[in-house]
């Protein structure tokens, strides 16, 4: 059975390591924060100038001066720091953030990603996405593997304007967990109950399946 949003977030959370500094994009990536293993020290960076995002506030603690990159009200944890946007992207560009998780419209077998613009639809802007994908040491994309019409979003080439090239390292979709390597989507794990056949049908780009592919353990 294909994963739902929370399933995707859960699987990505298994990639976290103690001491990681992580930037979570808007949408499914934000949900990863809910599945950080107990006792693991993971610090969340918000590119609008906060290292140490905490949970959403209770109603009485809402503070307009304290928002995340999605402009939602948040809190901060002990040992946080606030800074300006240049410092924030210095952290990102300088490779100090250990992991970036973000959504995408399309990803290619070379690790190209399209995530910010759909021609014909209104242009909202790339925000920090281009900076994040160009600079992060380790990028995991969280996405559904096919669009509403069943077309694959794991492609040979992007059809939409690019956010960055050769940058995506791993992908977790509703169907599987992939490493992007040597021009291919290398299947590492299947979502529970999803067959190799299901995955093949939902992958347009070069798919590599070697040996037995285990099911995710969530």
């Amino acid at each position, binding site marked *: 059975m294909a994963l739902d949003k929370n399933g995707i977030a859960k699987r990505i959370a298994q990639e976290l390591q103690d001491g990681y500094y992580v930037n979570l994009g808007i949408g499914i990536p934000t949900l990863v924060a809910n599945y950080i293993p107990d006792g693991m020290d993971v610090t969340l960076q918000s590119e609008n100038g906060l290292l140490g995002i905490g949970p959403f506030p209770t109603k009485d603690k809402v503070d307009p*001066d304290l928002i995340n990159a999605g402009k939602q009200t948040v809190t901060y944890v002990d040992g946080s720091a606030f800074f300006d946007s240049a410092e924030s992207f210095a952290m990102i560009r300088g490779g100090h953030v250990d992991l970036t998780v973000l959504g995408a419209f399309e990803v290619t077998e070379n690790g190209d990603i399209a995530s910010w613009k759909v021609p014909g639809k*209104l242009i909202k802007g*790339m925000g920090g996405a281009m900076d994040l994908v160009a600079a992060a040491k380790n990028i995991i994309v969280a996405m559904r593997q096919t669009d509403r019409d069943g077309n694959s979003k794991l492609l040979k080439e992007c059809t939409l304007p690019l956010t960055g090239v050769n940058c995506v390292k791993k992908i977790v979709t509703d169907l599987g967990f992939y490493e992007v390597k040597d021009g291919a989507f290398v299947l590492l794990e299947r979502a529970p109950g999803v067959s190799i056949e299901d995955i093949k049908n939902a992958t347009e780009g070069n798919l590599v399946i070697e040996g037995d592919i285990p099911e995710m353990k969530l």
Partner: protein
Amino acid sequence: MQKVFKNAKEAISDIKSGMSIMLGGFGLCGIPENSIDALVEADITKLTCISNNAGIDNVGLGKLLRKHQIYKMISSYVGENKEFERQLLSGELVVDLIPQGTLAERIRAGGAGIPAFFVPAGYGTEVQGDKEVREFNGKMHILEKGLRADFALVKAWKGDTKGNLIYRHTANNFNNMMAAAGIITIAEVEELVPAGELDPNCIHTPAIYVQRIFQGTDYKKQIEFETTSD
């Protein structure tokens, strides 16, 4: 040297049509509310506004958009604004979209006297355009330029009569770099104190960058997405 002005109207009185203006803030967080309101009341048009976002309908820069005072927006993200969409689609408004980190660094470079620098963001995308491309450490980069503006309008939490500024939480964002990148920088603060009251080890924007400062009033601090856990 008197940097302290009475209010926004007095502080912005020499901003003219056609000028470039940087405005601090991320979404509606940390925006110079008083200065924006004074611009709306002034008869100034054809502004080039450099701001990470463009406000929302009738809040923040949305107020200037509604009065057609903006000719061009230089931003990284302009969603959440219907009037903006309308003007963009009708061709009334010119928009230059820049990756957020590149925008922040271009402003920082402008204030720091660095005319150009290389970054990886945007390589291989439409942001690259005809910019110079160069490989460093096995990775492709593009050449980006420093950015200044005729005026920078920033908002701080506390400021002193010399012009030193301290921001609160995530309301800093673009304000700190913009203060240094404005040819003339106008700071509005929630609390204006005599020089000597702020901890000199805790100043975010040193006074040298601020030409004018005033005590702001009636901050609305509107929240775009109030999200709570209860």
